[in-house]
């Protein structure tokens, strides 16, 4: 299977710790000013007015970072748009690593307290209907790579992968584990 060009990874904010999306606007602007992420970052755009929308987006050349309101649940949404490895497993792992790192940066920003992310759930979405049509075969083809990444960041803890959502939407897989872990531990495992 050719690796999908677009891959999204979302970490949901823990209930009662999410912040208004507009609070993230100055944080994303600071990321551009300080080159907080080693990527070409371009601008910040506000979709806070759209119910269950993208919230606030930090637009980059190869990736976007969003404080997303989709699914009716706030969270950090990372989108790989172009560039990076062509290997499916590496591409999924790299997207997960970047999502975790960005979530950790948000958690660490004092202006966003008490924001915390729930590390027991990860949403993977593949908005590339050419290379990742939303069907059972593609899900099966992705399962091993997704499982491998989950094993690594959750340190082998038992987890489930389920295909969810509207069949017309991009293929969406939700990974869940019951073991709560610190976000920085996940970042370390993803990076190490």
């Amino acid at each position, binding site marked *: 299977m050719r690796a999908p060009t677009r891959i999204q990874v979302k970490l949901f904010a823990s209930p009662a710790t999410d912040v208004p999306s507009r609070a993230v606007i100055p944080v994303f602007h600071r990321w551009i000013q300080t080159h907080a992420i080693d990527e070409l970052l*371009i601008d910040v755009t506000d979709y806070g007015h759209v*119910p269950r929308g993208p919230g606030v987006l930090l*637009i980059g050349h190869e990736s976007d970072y969003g404080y997303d309101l*989709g699914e009716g649940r706030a969270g950090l949404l990372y989108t790989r748009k172009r560039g990076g490895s062509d290997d499916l497993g590496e591409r999924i792992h790299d997207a997960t690593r970047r999502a975790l790192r960005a979530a950790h940066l948000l958690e660490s920003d004092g202006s966003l307290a008490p924001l915390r992310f729930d590390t027991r759930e990860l949403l993977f979405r593949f908005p590339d209907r*050419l290379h990742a049509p939303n069907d059972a075969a593609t899900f099966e083809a992705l399962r091993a790579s997704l499982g491998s990444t989950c094993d690594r960041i959750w340190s082998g803890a038992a987890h489930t992968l389920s295909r969810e959502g509207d069949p017309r939407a991009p293929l969406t897989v939700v990974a869940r584990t019951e073991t709560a872990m610190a976000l920085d531990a996940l970042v370390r495992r993803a990076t190490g």
Partner: protein
Amino acid sequence: MATAEPPASPASWKELLADRIDPDLGREIDIFETQLELRKQGKIEERLFAETRLRRGAYGQRYDNGQRHDGLVSQSLAFPDVPTKGPHTMWDAPGMQRIKIPLGRLTAAQLETLAEVAEDYSDGILHVTTRQDFQLHFVHIDDTPDLMRRLAAAGITTREACGNTVRNVTACPYVGVCTDESFDVTPYAHALTYFLLGHPDTQDFGRKFKVAFSGCADHACGLVHMHDLGYVARSRTGRDGTLERGFAVYLGGGLGSLPHQAKLVDDFMAEGEALPFAQALARVFARLGEKKNRGRARLKFLVEKLGFDELVRLVREERAKLPADARWTTFLDDLAKHEERPLKPGSTLGIGTFPAGFAAWSATNVRPQRQLGYSVVTITLPLGDLTAAQARALADIARRHCGDTIRTTVDQNIVLRWVPDAEAPAVYEALRDAGLASPGANTITDVTACPGTDTCKLGISSSRGLSSVLSEHLAKRELDPSVRRLQVKASGCFNACGQHHIADIGLLGVARKVGNHRVPHFQIVLGGETTRNAGAYGLAIGAVPSKRIPEAVDRITDLYARSKRPDETFQAFVQRIGKLKVKQLLEDLTVVGSHELESDLYSDWGDPREYTTGDMGVGECAGEVVPFVQFGLAASEREVFEAQMLLDAGQPSAAARRAFGAMLTAAQSLARTQNQDVSDEADVIVAEFRKHFHDTGLFHDPFAGDKFAQSLFRAHEASYDDVAPDVAHRQIEEASLFIDAAHACYTKMDTA
């Protein structure tokens, strides 16, 4: 890493969709893809490529010149080193893809396709424009051929969505179901759209060309008077007693920096003449329209140059010479083809218990159709935006309740037609579940806005940021019903894509310099009218800092609610009390404190960066500035306002003269920075201005060039003895823009 045995991927969208795309359209997209490749290889000149991609709807976006001010410094955006996609336009910079939706007419399946391409190539948001188009933002140019193929497979083209072409043909979204239309203009607008699309006679314009249709003369929906060419449906009884269809035809309208009202060509043009007349006009416009000076290239300037009667004479002469074309009338044989059929029988909304929120939503978002038992439901889209998931939900709702009767509106909303009345509560619940059941359609909270500084290269102020905040602010207030009916429209710059001229309260983004900083402002524009097909344009009464616009709107609307006479319209109210009173009401809001004390005013809505206009690409220019410049500019603003007072008082000649005086004051204040001895003589001021500011390019706008300087020169040569009101109106508009340009020039000089 380990992977399972993969399913085979199709090679490309081109292969996958080959049998679903119209061959001609497919070939066009293949050619476009080749042109992309040739440009990458440097085999197509960048300006030619820019116009090529524009004609396929692929537009530039802010920061695509590779520069962005991050609030502290201007940063270079290090895009990969590949050829540009136009002058100063980086190949890899995100762009905007405009998608033409003729008449705003959509099927559920098309809406689903739009959702798919928004997710696969954009940021998941579909944006409805003020021309019933969709726009996707942050699209990479490399993705556009496949994006176009997927749309083409759904029967949608992006051809001629931008560039110097016939833009999306718009029409009232209620045609066919409206209670007071003459007849349904859908088949005519559809026929004209596809007749002119790609027609050889429409390929050599100096600027864009906009066409609109309206089913009636009195209401807002068609906005015919602000178009290059507009058709208003008319019926009459013929000599043989049968009902004849035709159109009142208007031409030469437009908004932009110098708005013009279209003028009546013919109060009853037979239906069979609609297409050939448009073709003849296109030929004359292509032949005689301005090609070099973009600022004077719209049809309205050709009207000005030739005179309306002469232009009409030339068009009629051209029409007489046109070789006959069967397409002019063949569509008339099958008008019924475009008739919508209701999915379900009409029904009555009974008395009973309805879902919470239904009554408030229904009061503003449900409108009875002419056909008994059916209604049009309006989906209020905040700033014209909806998510891909919402688009799919909307497609489901349409399939369940009304079929393929979806239309976008110029107010950046979507309507569902032919909803059986009894099903309105179920539609409401389904929309609510999708986050699409906001009430307030076409009320003061339903603010229209262009993209502004969010994504537009020309944006000066954040029209979307302001509109979002203003809408939320107004929704929280208990408003008088007369205030609730008002319309607010915001444009981020003088190009007026937000159509601020025709709103009850129009907002036009401008910048002002305070000390060593710049402050985002909006001009408050009063006197506009969407009714009577955009029957009147407003004029700016003064600029207020962006962050104080909600307070300004509160004051104006409170005054209206408190002091209006029974049934007095907002326009009549403003006319009666005088704009001076409104201006005085806002006077204290215009005073900007120091950066230290009021730092919030020095950034824009939704953007914490220190405000700058540098991202527009304004270059540096030399010059020495002395403080009295600001006094001179302030005086010129006062004079232009006085000109409005004179116009309102029925003295157009004096108004035009005063407006020219305002321009002279602004020009003189700038000229004195170069020559302190500039006298008060008009000839001397204009000569000095020309020498130091026009001829040096110092006054040039980065996008409009010397357009504003030319307006001074024209005003200097004009006679003010017997000026018509519309000419005086335009003179005031030009003076206002000239002064804004003088502010921008002063800011550039000071920065340098």
